[in-house]
């Protein structure tokens, strides 16, 4: 893993907002065309831990950004699946994962590594 990362091009982070633009235990949506990988939900959990996942529940595509955030998880607003923000995976016994993005918070600014792998 480590070796592969070193050989890969450096991850390109793009700044999306200030940390304080996201409500605590809430989310904001980064809009992207479906062809460019679709919307990204940027979450702010307790302790200012920030996560970014594709804004599409693995169940029926519900916008996860609109769900209730608790711990480091979100409950999808459509059918209440619980998705782990770190792994992007649904809590058992539900099955399915959503794409996650690496996030960096520096000097109060939130940056997301929007690779174009799914573009």
């Amino acid at each position, binding site marked *: 893993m480590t070796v592969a990362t070193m050989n890969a091009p450096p991850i390109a982070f793009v700044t999306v*907002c200030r940390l304080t633009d996201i409500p605590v*235990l*809430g989310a*904001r*949506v980064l809009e992207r065309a479906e062809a460019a990988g679709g919307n990204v939900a940027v979450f702010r959990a307790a302790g200012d831990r920030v996560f970014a996942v594709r804004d599409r529940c693995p169940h029926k595509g519900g916008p996860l950004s609109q769900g*209730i955030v*608790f*711990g480091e998880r979100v409950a999808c*607003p459509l*059918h209440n699946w619980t998705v782990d923000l770190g792994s992007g995976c649904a809590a058992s016994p539900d099955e399915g994962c959503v794409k996650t993005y690496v996030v960096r918070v520096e000097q109060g600014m939130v940056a997301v590594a929007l690779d174009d792998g799914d573009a």
Partner: protein
Amino acid sequence: MNARATLPRPRLVIVGNGMAGIRTVEELLKIAPDRYEITVFGAEPHPNYNRILLSPVLAGEQTVADIVLNSREWYADNGIALRTATRVTRVDRVRRAVEADDGSVTPYERVLLATGSHPFILPVPGADLPGVITYRDIADTEAMIDATAKYANAVVIGGGLLGLEAANGLARRGMKVTVVHLMPWLMERQLDRTAGGLLQRSLEARGLAFRLEAKTEALVAGESGRVGAVRLAGGETLPADLVVMAVGIRPNVDLAKAAGLHCERGIVVNDTLQTYDPRIYAIGECVAHRGQVYGLVAPLFEMAKVCANHLAGYGIGRYAGSQVSTKLKVTGIDLFSAGDFTGGADTEEIVLSDPGTGVYKKLVLKDDRLIGSVLYGDTVDGAWYYSLVRERRNVAEIRDRLMFGEAHLGDTGHQGQSRALTMADDAEVCGCNGVCKGTIVRAIKDKGLFTLDDVRKHTKASSSCGSCTGLVEQLLMAAAGGDYSAAPKTKPICGCTDRTHQETRDAIRREKLQSIAATMHFLEWRTPNGCATCRPALNYYVLSTWPHEAVDDPQSRFINERAHANIQKDGTFSVIPRMWGGETTAPELRRIADVVDKYGIRTVKVTGGQRIDLLGVKKEDLPAVWKDLDMPSGHAYAKALRTVKTCVGSEWCRFGTQDSTAMGKSLERALWRMYAPHKVKLAVSGCPRNCAESGIKDVGVIGVESGWEIYVGGNGGIKTEVAQFLVKVKTSDEVLEHAGAFLQLYREEGWYLERTVHYVGRVGLEHVKRKVVEDAEGRRALWERLQFALDGEPDPWHEPERAKVDLRQFAPLAVVP
């Protein structure tokens, strides 16, 4: 993985490879998968299997392979060392090691004793003869099946649950079976005399013979040296090539006693399932908890959850005892009992007895509460009665209908079915999630599900609207016997706490808790910021208890209440403006039409509550749509007053006796912006023809020549419920005061997500009448409290700042260049 394996982990030794021990391991793996190095000892040569289903195996309805709950691969996959056919001989507490009959010595940091029970063997001559067995495990079951192929006559000693299941199985396999029972009727611990007699007759019809009040004196050897007969105290001798002793079980405390642990009837444990040695836990049939010994599976699972939590080092949760129910697993005989059904001097009984059709039902009541029931022949309502017993619900008002059961489990979504067992496998049980009966039954069997929650998680059945809950419970009961239900005495709000809704509401008022955080802190919530179930409830409780003092937390509200619009399946929203009493005007309609054009709104629909719904609005357009509509928020998205539906009334209608539209408008103006435990819908009709459908509303008002009748607790949704008459009043002011007082009472006492019908059902209409009708001063106080709470409450669409609407949510982020 490698890093994990090199760290020395504490060793946990499980003594007993049965349902209780392994359930604890499963619970432990869920919350702390890497905490222990686990070794499981089982005296039987099998992996964990479902002991409840031994009777269907004996009866030839299932095979041993069918009833295995955890395969050997499961143990391997979870890194558990499984030692089957290995009996633990000693727990050495000084050297902290477990010794087994294979000579092994296994050191431990923690031990879990799950040694189950010993079958009781009558101390009569001949009890040790070949052919005399007990009925406890797979080996016993196989010995019985084996005997049915070689021998003709069997005697089962003991006419309890287990004995009768054994007798039935042996008879089904062709043996001639006599049941010898010491007591005057069968299953005397679960049944009264009448039901016991009915049971005996139907078993006799299947070819079983009985000797009641009969004492076994000796077992006599036959010529081969194997048992040949059973001699009774009166001198009668019954031929028997096989004798099954099913006269009861005793907690297996041998190991614990030898290790010097304090034992009474069972191994004594505290509410965390810990024995007197803090390193040793015990669970299941072998323990005595608060003086009680349990032999059914539901309590064991409750214990497992708590025990696993403490083993994981979280130290949260207590086991406080369980209520139990029983169901006989003999195919074709329906029998159910729960609670205290024998009664006493201060109890009352309602009995229905129809020997012709073989139906007998007895309900035992005490102080207007159901405390026990026996059902024979028709057990469809067993789960319902059991829940009434557990919830200690006041049944005074439904007493006259109680015997006839929960008449309609639900009217919608499953073809009006109320008997799951008669449904075909491909019949849909859960109409919301499209789950068929066959799918549920398979999941229950294959995945070893025992609780309603398990079934909901795995199949989604009954997890949406809940109208099919009764059917699912029936399927569980049929598949797992009366053991199906996890039976905590009280139901906590969610997994974050042990507190019930009532305890939480009480604490918020008593301790003047004015925020979610303060409530969680005071009531010792286990999670740092709750979950999607408890946070909305707590937010409602602090706001409704402390109006103008507690501060709303939008992040603890469901998206609809956060965005003040209804989310749709494609992520867009719907907007329903308020139209007072369902009346609108030309300028309003013009503005609505303009908004539809301007924002490209795809669908415009008239709702059931006489409003206009604009569907497919993009979230970022919401603030502009509200502004352009220039109409108040309809709160169609909130647990709040939704609509007051009206008929045209006396102003136009030739039958109208009262001006229902004016009444409806003033009710709606007085009550709008009122948040509640759940949505609230009103209707006002101008005459008893009731065109506004007041009979199925939370508050329904019907005008008559001499005034207004007020009905409460109706519901037109999942399960149609007719509203109950509350009071008749003369003036419209009185209507406002009574309706308002009732709704304030509901706001103060209701549990979050409890509709008025369930609230009234829980507290009783009498309670509501006392507070709202009989106590004039109290009524005025309630009405004033509601007006105080609503005073100055902002319209979120037009005063978003005051309503604390987070407007940032309507602006999507963009990549900063």
